[in-house]
């Protein structure tokens, strides 16, 4: 009943990039995530789907410790990035976030020029020595963000003057510019129209060749189109995690089936 995924299904098993083990997340007294075990592969697009409030965004934000900024939020269990526990006391979340980049639901460019937006990450992480190198990084990132051709003549223009779709691609380019290993995307297309969505999805598919991409989405069609692996969350539990094709054609759990056929959610 869903579109046949237009991305080539990759059945080869890649290395494990992130592995989560018995992750519990509490907001004050309320438990938002219960016992989540999950292994995210390198060079793969993994989609998190599920009804609103199921905990998929919360879990995503655990992967680069963005939840640290919420004072009442508490995370238990372990999440390993390349075998290192990211919640270890020795880990500086700032360093982690340079490796695990994030793109947010609403395009959130800084109210600065297009160039400065992309250059911000490399600047704070000291990724270049000369101005020419920085120019190069910015161009590369904007090319990866499929934005270069549109903006190469107006890099000094304010980013806030761009269209929503362009802004979101800029945010992706900005995240890519810091050369992360994992890219987390929290409903990156929910504020975009279908054409901009298609452009971003195409971009996500291209990014797969270098990064491990994790995307939270409300659109099951989108999950089917862009991801190789899909995780279904429900009421804080990871109900089912498998190849996307399997989840959408032959789910094991009755709750997954109910959700993708539109009976719950």
């Amino acid at each position, binding site marked *: 009943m869903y579109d046949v995924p237009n991305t080539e299904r990759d059945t080869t098993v890649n290395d494990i990039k992130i592995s989560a083990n018995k992750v519990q997340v509490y907001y004050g007294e309320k438990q938002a995530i219960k016992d989540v075990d999950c292994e995210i592969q390198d060079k793969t697009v993994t989609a998190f789907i599920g009804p609103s409030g199921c905990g998929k965004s919360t879990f995503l934000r655990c992967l*680069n410790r963005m939840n640290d900024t919420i004072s009442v939020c508490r995370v238990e269990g372990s999440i390993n990035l390349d075998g290192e526990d990211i919640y270890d006391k020795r880990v500086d979340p*700032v360093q*982690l*976030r340079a490796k695990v*980049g*994030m793109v*947010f639901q609403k395009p959130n460019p800084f109210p600065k020029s297009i160039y400065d937006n992309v250059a*911000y990450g490399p600047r*704070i992480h000291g990724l270049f020595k000369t101005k020419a190198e920085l120019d190069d990084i910015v161009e590369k990132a904007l090319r990866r963000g499929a934005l270069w051709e549109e903006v190469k003549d107006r890099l000094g223009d304010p980013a806030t003057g761009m269209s929503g779709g362009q802004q979101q691609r800029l945010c992706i380019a900005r995240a890519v510019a810091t050369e992360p290993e994992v890219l987390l995307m929290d409903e990156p297309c929910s504020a975009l129209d279908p054409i901009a969505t298609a452009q971003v999805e195409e971009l996500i598919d291209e990014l797969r060749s270098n990064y491990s991409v994790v995307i939270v989405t409300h659109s099951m069609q989108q999950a089917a189109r862009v991801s190789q692996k899909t995780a279904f969350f429900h009421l804080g539990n990871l109900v089912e995690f498998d190849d996307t094709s399997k989840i959408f054609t032959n789910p094991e759990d009755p709750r997954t089936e109910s959700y993708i056929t539109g009976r719950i959610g």
Partner: protein
Amino acid sequence: MTMEHTDAVPGPSTKSSLYALSPHVKKRNAKEARFKAIGIGAILIGLVFLVILVTQIVGNGASAFQQTRIDVELTVSQEEFDSAEKSSLKTSKYRGILENALLVTIQENGIETPFTKGKDIRPLISSGAGNTLRQHLLTHPDQIGEPFKFNVLTNGTVDGYLKGRVSRESIANDKSINEAHLELVDTLKDSGVLRKGFNMGFITGNDTSDLRPEQSGFGQSMLGSLAMMIVVLLVCLPISVGASIYLEEFAPKNKITDFIEVNISNLAAVPSIVFGILALAAFIQFGGGTLGFSALRNSAPLVGGLALSLMTLPTIIIATRASLKAVPGTIREAALGLGASRMQAVFHHILPLAMPGILTGTIIGLAAALGETAPLLMIGMVAFVQMDLDSVSGFFSDPNVGMPAQIYIWATRADGAWYERAWGGIIILLVFLLTMNIIAIILRRRFERRW
């Protein structure tokens, strides 16, 4: 309101025309109309008060910017100069010279006058004019022995006569001046020897004794206020911005920070006289007395500025926190998501975006401090202070007054001329406040960025 209950799906029970207003809608419309009328009435009352305020201030104070002067042609010979300098009553000698010269000027202009001696026309010129002439000759020694034209301030009463404040009836009991003097003033005015002109001295001058309102000026108190504002800005801006950033961006939310927050809000509501007595105890008595810092003394603008800082801190902290809060969280997330540290997120993104709000709050706080009088009462900044404006040694530590304090001092003095000057001072103070508010608006408009 009642609902008709039927077994079927509820619907309109009767057909009604859209053209006929139902009683319920009519009542609602009437309520709305009444509310609008009350609102317009409130605005009108406010406007009336504003008009009264502006007309009163301008009507009473505008004349302070005009002052009456007489042109006197005179020659001071070397002998006269030497004898005056030797005298122990120097200024009175010079005044005598001026009086005689004025009488000659009057007679040369062909004006008939019953006065035959210079002493008789003494009430016409300012009692400070002798000293002015002396200072002029000391700075221009080449004019001794040469004829020159000297522009002399008239007495405050004569000035008041031309401005309509003094009349023949009101001087009936005044022993220093009589009707003949006023008649002479009238003829001098007609012949152009005596005329009103722009009063630069009011803007640049300093306070004078009770008897010489015509010589007094507002400039000294403007300097005092400027010194205080500099202190307030230097003390308040870094402290309050630092405190706000910490409380808003870094501090854990717990009972202690809650307590601090409540207290900052309470501090904003403390009467300003309390800050005055606190400044007296903490800065003058403890800092200046016990610890012996000589700059912290009575009537010093430094102490005044510190007292006003205490008062302004909570205002700026509250404004700064509000503008930090107004920066959308998405900007914070964007920076943190790219691996910026908290401090980088604050200083690279949040603070620049909050800056227009912070600056506006700071200027509003400064404006409030500029107009504040009560704390100055407690630390002795309402005394008669006369500075020599040409050689101000301790800009921050020499005793001075602030603008509102100067207005208060003038308003308490007897002569009508002081009353006029108090209003004139209010005009200058309001011009400053208006300018500061306009700057605040311009900053807000110019640096406001959309996100």
